C-alpha cells in the first residue's frame, strides 16, 4: 500500500512513521502534490502552532492539495484542528473541511489543567475507524485547543467539556489524540484506517 505523510515541518512525525512501519507499511514523507494525490492513504499529523502551520501549508499550496483529496486522509492532533474552519490559536483561518471553530480550553476548576495531557477515554465511537471498539478504550492526548461536538463528531472525550476526539466527513478523518502513541488501541485505529 502506498501511504503518504504530508510533510509540513510541524513537529516530530517519526512516531507516526514508526507506528506505520510496525503495521508493515513504509510511508513516504513528502510535500509533493502529485505524490500526495496519488497515494492510497494520506496522513496529516503534527504538533505545533496553528498559524505558522497554515502559513506553511498555503506557501506550499498544500492547503489546496489536502482539500482536493478523494482517498482516505487522517489528520492527527494539530492536523484535526487545521481541517476545521477557524482556530482561536493565532486567530487562524484553517482549511474548512469541517465547518466548525477550534476553541481554547477554559479551566473551570483547579483540576482542569491545560494542556490536556495523558490518557483519556473515548465514548460514542462511530464509523469503521473504530471497528472492534467496546467503549472502554483509552487514548493519549496532548493539546490546549479543542474541537467542540458537531455533526461530524465520531468519538467524544470529556475534559472540562465534552469535545470531538475524532471527526469524519466523506473521505476526511481526523483524531485529536495521538493513535501512534496510544499503544495497542492506537494501532487498531491506524490499522482500521489503512483498511478503509
Amino acid at each position: 500500500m502506498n501511504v503518504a505523510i504530508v510533510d509540513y515541518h510541524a513537529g516530530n512525525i517519526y512516531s507516526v512513521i514508526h507506528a506505520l512501519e510496525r503495521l508493515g507499511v513504509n510511508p513516504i514523507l513528502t510535500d509533493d502534490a502529485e505524490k500526495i494525490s496519488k497515494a492510497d492513504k494520506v496522513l496529516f499529523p503534527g504538533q505545533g502552532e496553528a498559524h505558522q502551520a497554515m502559513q506553511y501549508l498555503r506557501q506550499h499550496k498544500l492547503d489546496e492539495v489536502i482539500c482536493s483529496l478523494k482517498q482516505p486522509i487522517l489528520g492527527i492532533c494539530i492536523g484535526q484542528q487545521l481541517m476545521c474552519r477557524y482556530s482561536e490559536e493565532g486567530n487562524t483561518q484553517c482549511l474548512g473541511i469541517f465547518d466548525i471553530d477550534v476553541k481554547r480550553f477554559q479551566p473551570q476548576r483547579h483540576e482542569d489543567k491545560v494542556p490536556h495531557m495523558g490518557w483519556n477515554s473515548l465514548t460514542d465511537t462511530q464509523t469503521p475507524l473504530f471497528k472492534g471498539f467496546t467503549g472502554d478504550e483509552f487514548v493519549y492526548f496532548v493539546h490546549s485547543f479543542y474541537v467542540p461536538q458537531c455533526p461530524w463528531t465520531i468519538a467524544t472525550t470529556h475534559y472540562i467539556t465534552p469535545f470531538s476526539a475524532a471527526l469524519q466527513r466523506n473521505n476526511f478523518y481526523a483524531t485529536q489524540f495521538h493513535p501512534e502513541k496510544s499503544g495497542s488501541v492506537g494501532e487498531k485505529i491506524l490499522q482500521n484506517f489503512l483498511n478503509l
Partner: protein
Amino acid sequence: MLAKRIIPCLDVKDGQTVKGTNFVNLRHAGDPVELGRAYSECGADELVFLDITASHEGRKTFATMVERVAATLSIPFTVGGGINEISDVDRMLSAGADKVSINSAALRRPELIDEITRHYGSQVCVVAIDARQEADGTWQCYVNGGRVPVGKSLFDWAHEAQERGAGEILFTSMNHDGVKNGFANEALRQLADNLTIPIIASGGAGKMEHFRDAFLHGHVDAALAASVFHFGEIGIPQLKQYLKGENINVRL
C-alpha cells in the same frame, strides 16, 4: 475522565538497564528496549529512561537506545540524565523521545526551561526536583544526584519552574526514596494544590496502597517507581485493578 498515570523508571548505564528485574520471557533482561516493551504491554502509561552514564561514549550509546525505543514503543516516553543544554534536548527529541526531564542543569541555569518551552512547547519539558525535608521542616533542593544542596526551597523552585513554562514537575523526596514506606504525600499535596501543572510523585513506593495514597492524599496526576516494578514486587496489571477498585480512574 483523564486517567491517573503509572510510570516505571528505568536507569540505563552504557545502554543497559542497571537494576535487576524479575521479568521472564525476555531474551535480554538488561535490554532497556525489551524491558520497555514488556512494561508497555502490561499497561504502563508512560516510561522514563534515565541515563546514569558518566562517559561521553556512553551518552552516544544512550541516544542509539532512544532511537530503538522510539521504533519499538507505542506509548509516550521521557528521557533524562545528562541534559544540560538545548542541543541535548534537540538530540533526544530527534531520536524520538516525547519529553525530556531536566534536573541539576535547570537549577544551575533556570533559563533552560524557558528555552525548551519556547522551542518545543511546555509538554516536552519535565522538571525533576530532588528535595529533602530538613530538621527544621523545610524542603530543600539538591543537585548532583542529591549530594549538593543549592539553597532553594522545593516550593519556590517548583513555582518558578512552572512560571518559566515547565509542563510537569517530577518530585522525588530524598527522605522517602528507597525506604518503601510511601510517597511524601504532604509535600506532594502542597505542590499539587498550589501549582497548575501536573505533579508526578517519586520515591517511596513499597505497596499498592502507597500509590492509592499518593493519588487520594497527595493529589498527584502520576506516580513513578522503579524497584517495586523491576523486581516484580508489584505487578502493573494488579496495581491498576487495585486502584480501579479504590475508585481511582486508571487506564486498563
